[in-house]
């Protein structure tokens, strides 16, 4: 298994273990009691996290993160209308939410297709107007005597305590269908997300595939509304995907990791909110999810801030060392022989701080010796400088003749020894070429 795959699976395992360990830890540290309600809510949160994390990846990759926000806000009037038509059954409320959200999706698409509105403007106007409609309808419902206890306002900020076992079953069933669809149309979703134009040119029905993917995202949003609410749902949708993207370079890893991050945020966030009845669950879940984002941006290998600043440091050390070696060698050769010392002021004058950095490294590895005010290559230093100079000459020849000689095509990187990147027979050809040429 390639190193990167291993790292990703390790990360996934780490998060799972961390999540499981949190349960006894929470009991011990905060005195959380895992009552039936807490267990149901935590399970519901974790399952929702899986669904919204997996689908949210696509929203993030399509640069439609804020589309998720618009669609979740747009669900509110659907909840209200469904209540007026069918009562407080959660299934109907969510279907209503989904329909309102889906109409908003198509309306935004229609605005973009027929007018010169930009996407942010179209989304903004739909978000505000649908949400306003929803608030107005909720106010109306509150005024109906029988309905005032319906508790529909829980859909605005989310109210986890209201989740019961049958809700978790409903969410799991719908979520399983969504994830199955994601698996079945994986190849199509990947293609249209990466390069929609190429997909059209290849005969894919890109409009249909996009609508299907957006519909799945709408379903994921709607399933989470009861827990996170229309305002915060976008966080649950996109945070796991943003965090996961930092750790991997492959789409399926990103999606799996986002699902695991989502489950962690949903489950752990719900458990933390059980510490005190005053801690709201939805916001707590988002806080946990955001912590995952922060930790990922800081720590992830490859893309993380720590990692990249470390790599920059290593690079500048390497470049400084190489430059100092080349400078010394060039100076010595132009003054007679490779062992000739160069004055300190001269060699530092060329590269200032980086020269000092390079000279220190050369000194430590015994390639140079110093008298304090001059620097001189040792025998091993001369050998290393010669090898480097030879590599540079071969690079010159490679640039000139690689094509004529049918050598493998490489991106030139003159910081590397060409003998490390080209096969031996190609080096042999270049060496032969060098001998033929009068110098």
């Amino acid at each position: 298994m390639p190193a990167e795959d291993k790292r990703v699976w390790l990360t996934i395992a780490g998060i799972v273990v961390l999540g499981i360990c949190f349960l006894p830890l929470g009991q011990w540290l905060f005195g959380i009691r895992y009552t039936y309600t807490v267990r149901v809510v935590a399970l519901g949160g974790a399952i929702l996290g899986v669904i919204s994390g997996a689908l949210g990846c696509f929203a993030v990759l399509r640069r439609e993160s804020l589309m998720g926000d618009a669609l979740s806000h747009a669900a509110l009037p659907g909840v209200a209308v469904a209540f007026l038509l069918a009562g407080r059954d959660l299934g109907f409320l969510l279907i209503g939410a989904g329909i309102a959200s889906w109409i908003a999706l198509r309306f935004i698409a229609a605005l973009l297709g027929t007018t010169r509105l930009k996407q942010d403007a179209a989304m903004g106007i739909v978000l505000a107007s649908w949400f306003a409609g929803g608030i107005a309808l909720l106010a109306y419902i509150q005024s109906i005597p029988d309905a005032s206890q319906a508790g529909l306002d829980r859909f605005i900020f989310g109210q986890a305590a209201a989740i019961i076992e049958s809700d978790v079953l409903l969410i799991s069933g719908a979520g399983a269908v969504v994830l199955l669809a994601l698996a079945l149309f994986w190849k199509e979703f990947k293609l249209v997300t990466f390069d929609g134009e190429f997909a059209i040119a290849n005969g894919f029905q890109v409009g249909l595939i996009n609508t299907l993917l957006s519909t799945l995202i709408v379903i994921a949003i709607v399933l989470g509304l009861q827990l996170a609410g229309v305002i915060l749902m976008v966080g649950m949708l996109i945070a796991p995907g943003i965090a996961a993207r930092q750790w991997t370079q492959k789409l399926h890893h990103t999606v799996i990791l986002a699902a695991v991050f989502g489950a962690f945020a949903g489950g752990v966030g719900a458990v933390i909110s059980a510490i005190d009845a005053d801690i709201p669950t939805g916001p707590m879940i988002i806080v946990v999810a955001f912590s995952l984002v922060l930790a990922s941006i800081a720590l992830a290998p490859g893309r993380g801030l720590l990692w990249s600043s470390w790599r920059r440091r290593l690079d500048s050390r390497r470049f400084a060392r190489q430059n100092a070696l080349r400078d010394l060698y060039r100076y010595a050769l132009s003054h007679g022989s490779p062992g000739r010392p160069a004055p300190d002021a001269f060699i530092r004058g060329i590269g200032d701080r980086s020269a000092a950095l390079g000279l220190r490294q050369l000194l430590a590895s015994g390639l140079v010796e110093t008298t304090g005010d001059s620097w001189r290559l040792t025998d091993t230093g001369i050998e290393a400088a010669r090898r480097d100079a030879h590599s540079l000459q071969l690079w010159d020849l490679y640039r000139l003749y690689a094509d004529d000689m049918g050598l493998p095509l490489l991106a030139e990187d003159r910081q590397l020894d060409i003998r490390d990147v080209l096969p031996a027979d190609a080096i042999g050809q270049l060496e032969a070429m060098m001998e033929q040429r009068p110098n």
Partner: protein
Amino acid sequence: MNDRAPLALSVEDLTVAYHSKPAIWDIDLGVPEGVLMAIVGPNGAGKSTLIKAVLNLIPRAAGRVSFYGSPYEQARSLVGYVPQRGSVDWDFPTSVLDVVTMGLYGKLGWLRRPGRRERDLALFALDQVGLLDLVDRQISQLSGGQQQRAFLARALVQDAQIYFMDEPFAAVDAITERAIVKILHQLKERGKTVLVVHHDLQTVEDYFDWVTLLNVEVVASGPAAVVFSPENLQKTYGGRVSYLHDGQVLAAGD
């Protein structure tokens, strides 16, 4: 025009307008099978628009297009496409091999997943463009030229009859340029037809045997030796072309 070879692409009366301003106007074009054709013209002449309209990627105001006598819907498997490199997000989490495999998705159809055979085809194409060492790289780690070659490999696996390439030579390194030229000639040897949006007037005659000069309308189209003349270039570019002594041409601003 060459009467013996069948027309790989035939375009009649094609017009595309953006906000009622025509981007290309009344294009008539017949491209014989097996030619390497450069589409040349100044910025804003509608070169990319022409390709996109032919491939149904943007709506046409008028016109008919046929590939080997069939409309696009029935000829999709004959057509390969190399979009401009800047048209996608190269930070997308996917590998070079994966991108090239995408060229085969169309043939797989719904629900089927790429397998061993697709992998081998993709690796073969990557070898042709000299990227075999980089198959597992994440695509953002490629240089611009390597990205262009990955796109080229993705089109090669399509095993199409007629290829459309949108500025493949734009801002690429010398190695990539040579790799693309090599591929173009291999495609020609295999009887494929290739249409390339091209910017560099210097290399037109070296790389291509057929030329279409475009500036909203078609100024001239035919064998490079006939069509690529100072008069026609002047008609295409207006006064913005300067001529060097030895017959070389240079577009001002290059």
